[in-house]
């Protein structure tokens, strides 16, 4: 049977040995495990941050481009509306002009027709008046059996016929 240490007690050599071993484990852990791992994680975080930055820049670009396109689109749309409106206005104006012209022409046509009719009627009335006065003169000559001097009696008969009533 060999020797045993006391259950509760500190042996200097064991303690020194444990201390050296613990320090060895510590330095190995720091140099070979946690150091490289932390470096790798930091690198990866840097890469992730870079990627996020790039993505953010791309997103900003895209948003700017989208805003520009939207603006252009709305400008084009309003321009189109403007053009359509102007065309409508022109068309309406032209239609109004045409209508006015037509109405004017129609009115002129009507007026001329009316004048023609009036002239015709006057002419007819004058002819009729001449015929009637001649007839009356003949009739009165026959009645008084006396040749009336048409040149002296004509104004008398015209006055009589005018008194008889306006034939127009």
């Amino acid at each position, binding site marked *: 049977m060999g020797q045993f240490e006391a259950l509760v007690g500190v042996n200097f050599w064991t*303690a020194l*040995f444990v201390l050296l071993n*613990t320090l060895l484990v510590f330095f190995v852990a720091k140099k*070979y495990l*946690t150091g490289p791992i*932390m470096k790798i994680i930091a690198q990866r975080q840097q890469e992730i941050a870079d990627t996020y930055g790039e993505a953010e820049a791309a997103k900003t670009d895209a948003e700017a481009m989208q805003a520009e396109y939207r603006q252009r689109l709305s400008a084009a749309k309003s321009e189109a509306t403007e053009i359509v409106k102007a065309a409508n206005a022109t068309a309406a104006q032209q239609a109004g002009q045409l209508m006015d012209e037509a109405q004017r022409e129609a009115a002129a046509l009507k007026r001329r027709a009316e004048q023609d009719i009036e002239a015709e009627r006057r002419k007819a009335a004058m002819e009729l008046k001449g015929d009637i006065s001649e007839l009356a003169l003949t009739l009165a000559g026959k009645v008084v059996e006396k040749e009336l001097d048409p040149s002296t009696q004509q104004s008398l008969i015209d006055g009589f016929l005018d008194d008889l009533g306006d034939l127009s």
Partner: protein
Amino acid sequence: MTLNVTGPFIYFTIPILGGIPITQTTVSFLIVTVLLCTLFVALGKGLSTDHPSARQTLVEKGVMMMHDLVVSSMGSHNAHWTPFMITIFLCSICGSLIGMTGFFRSATADLSCTMVWALMVSFIIWHNNIKNNGVLGWFKGFTEPVAVMTPMNIVSEIAQPVSMAFRHFGNVAGGGVITSVLYMGLSMASTAVLNLISASGWLVSAVLMAAGAGLLLLRRRKKKLSLLIFGCLSLGLGIFGLLQTLGVLSGVPVLALGIPAVLSCYFDIFSGAVQALVFSLLSMVYIAGSCPDPNED
């Protein structure tokens, strides 16, 4: 039957400098050291930022867990203490669990081991205090808040490493003692039971074997753990009782089979892990107390 509770066995003594004893603690901690160093070097190889292997992912997870623990309890300005805490934690848990191999004694069941770690923490704290406040400032710190408190402060400064060391050592060594006591008690109990069975004649053994076999057969219908346990126990008692009656074997510690495993789960695995965690958490808290955030002043 007596149980000798002793410290670690001294394998041999190197006859220089007044004799350097090579104890069980020395050997088991050397194995832990070699194991951990090999593990660290192997795990720290072939790391890559963009295509981490499964092994690297796990290692990163483990390191980051300790890193986060350190940051949450010590603050981000103390994150450089992570390797030290990993060392303390892994040395402690491996030093405790190596006792479960059966060939080696738990290194942490030796006060020499835990006292060294506790004193390392204390020396770090004292070093930080002297660095931050100067030697005079450190001594002056003992007289705060009032000069009367000086003896108390000195005692608490000494009590801190002592309590840390004894807590860890006591839990692991105590667990080992309890396990030994349990093994001894169970082997005594099984000797007594087997003596009783063999003295009663072979018929009792036969009945026990039949009952055990019956219980095990019944378990094929109903899956119940109790049936398995009692079946095995009864069958084992019957077989070894019969063997002792026939004079083939005697004093087989039947009861010590399986039962101590349940308690060993608590006293060796759970206690070892918890003490490692407690030790490293206390180290973090104490060291953080001596490393104030430089940005807060």
